[in-house]
């Protein structure tokens, strides 16, 4: 369907110049080719690809003569079209299978031009339709469909009881912590021993120095351990000496250490 027949004169060079200067208006080489093809004023299916190739090459030459910078893709297309033109003009020979014939290449180009033109027309047709918000309108005050959400809680009796159990467990912990303040503190034992050290120039059994007024067994035990720690603290500070006869639970003896002055 595409032949290399020379039909129509070479394009008017003034017209070409206009096209060249309008290069920004084209969406690439195929778009430019399409514009040139329309100038042939024939059905695109019967367009002369050879003539089109010549027009295009002339366009590129014109652009160069005007020292206009053309994007690479326009130059690539020009060289491809020059190649296509030579293929179309040469007598049909037995070419290698891999290389499409000139006619096949021309047909592919014609298809692409038709396809692009179809899409350009489709785009214009779409835009010309009555469009929402321009020619056609939706309800300006849509009431909407109200959604009433009823919350359903994914909570069972088990979860409720478990939560209460946790609260009770936490309360027990808190109670214990509060009562813990009743324990005999090491600080208090240190204070007490310091006061009593003046009366202990000689070895004295620690248990005789323990407070007598302590009530509960737990408090008394904490007093024992607090005083023991206090003894170690004071010994480290060099305020008293500590001595234990034998292993195990043998009595612990302390005495004041004389200040070296």
């Amino acid at each position, binding site marked *: 369907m595409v032949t290399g027949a020379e039909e129509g004169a070479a394009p008017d060079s003034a017209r070409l110049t206009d096209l060249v200067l309008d290069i920004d208006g084209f969406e690439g080489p195929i778009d430019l080719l399409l514009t040139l093809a329309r100038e042939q004023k024939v059905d695109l299916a019967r367009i002369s690809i050879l003539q089109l190739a010549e027009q295009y090459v002339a366009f590129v030459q014109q652009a160069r003569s005007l020292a206009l910078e053309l994007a690479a893709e326009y130059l690539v297309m020009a060289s491809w079209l020059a190649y296509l033109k030579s293929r179309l003009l040469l007598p049909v020979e037995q070419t290698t299978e891999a290389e499409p014939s000139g006619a096949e290449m021309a047909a592919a180009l014609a298809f692409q031009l038709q396809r692009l033109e179809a899409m350009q*027309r489709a785009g*214009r*047709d*779409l*835009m*010309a*339709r*009555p469009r929402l918000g321009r020619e056609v*309108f*939706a*309800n*300006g*005050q849509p*009431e909407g*469909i*109200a*959604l*009433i*959400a*009823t*919350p*359903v*809680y*994914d*909570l*069972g*009796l088990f*979860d*409720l*009881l*478990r*939560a*209460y*159990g*946790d*609260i*009770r*467990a*936490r*309360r*027990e*912990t*808190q*109670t*214990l*912590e509060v*009562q*813990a303040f009743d324990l005999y503190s090491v600080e208090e034992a240190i204070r007490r021993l310091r006061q009593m050290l003046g009366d202990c120039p000689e070895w004295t059994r620690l248990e005789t120095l323990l407070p007598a007024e302590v009530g*509960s*067994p*737990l408090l008394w035990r904490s007093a024992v351990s607090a005083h023991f720690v206090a003894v170690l603290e004071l010994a480290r500070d060099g305020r008293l000496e500590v001595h234990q006869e034998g292993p195990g639970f043998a009595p612990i003896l302390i005495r004041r250490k004389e200040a070296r002055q």
Partner: protein
Amino acid sequence: MTADETRPTPESAPGIDDPAALLPLPEGADLRPHARIAEALLFAAPRPLTPRELAERLPRGCDVGQVLDSLRADYQGRGVHLVKLGEGYAFRSAPDLAPYLTEHRNETRKLSRAAVETLAIIAYHQPVTRAEIEEIRGVALSRGTLDVLLEAGWIGPRGRRQSPGRPLTWGTSDSFLDHFGLGGLDELPGIEDLRAAGLLDSRPAIAAYGARADELPLEEEDDPEDDPEA
């Protein structure tokens, strides 16, 4: 324009394609073309339109009152009505159809830990004041916690405590019993039941004072021998 080929042809709209054809309307002429325009204007407008605003947009000489009356009559008994709202007119769905325009949906939600604990405390200690709940939980109640339980319909006010400040007390509702499958508040498991069921855990903090816990009865309910985990 090729687009016109696919454009739906205006069905039986006599002579409206040319707006100019509508100007000066003869006495007693067909209202229909004007009613169509008014209908579209009222439909598309983002707010109710007053008769004056309609008149400005309708062809000259058009009796807006008549047009509105005819539209109102057209929509009588339909799912959409033309109603007067203040000075303006607008289409609104028929009020009797409101149930169809409302979608009821159950939404599964999760209660916050604070809400679950608060509910548990209200259940076990009712009637209980907000301050008491905070004391038991050891933290202040955040603003929304009681609201969530109120919204769920599980709790309600139970009168005021006769104490300084007369604080409001809270208790659980019938739907609380329904939801949790309880025949009554007396069916809530007691502390001992919770413990036996393993729902009253001992915390590590207790172990730290274990020696003392042996000797000191902490609270009347808290008999350590009963604790299966001890």
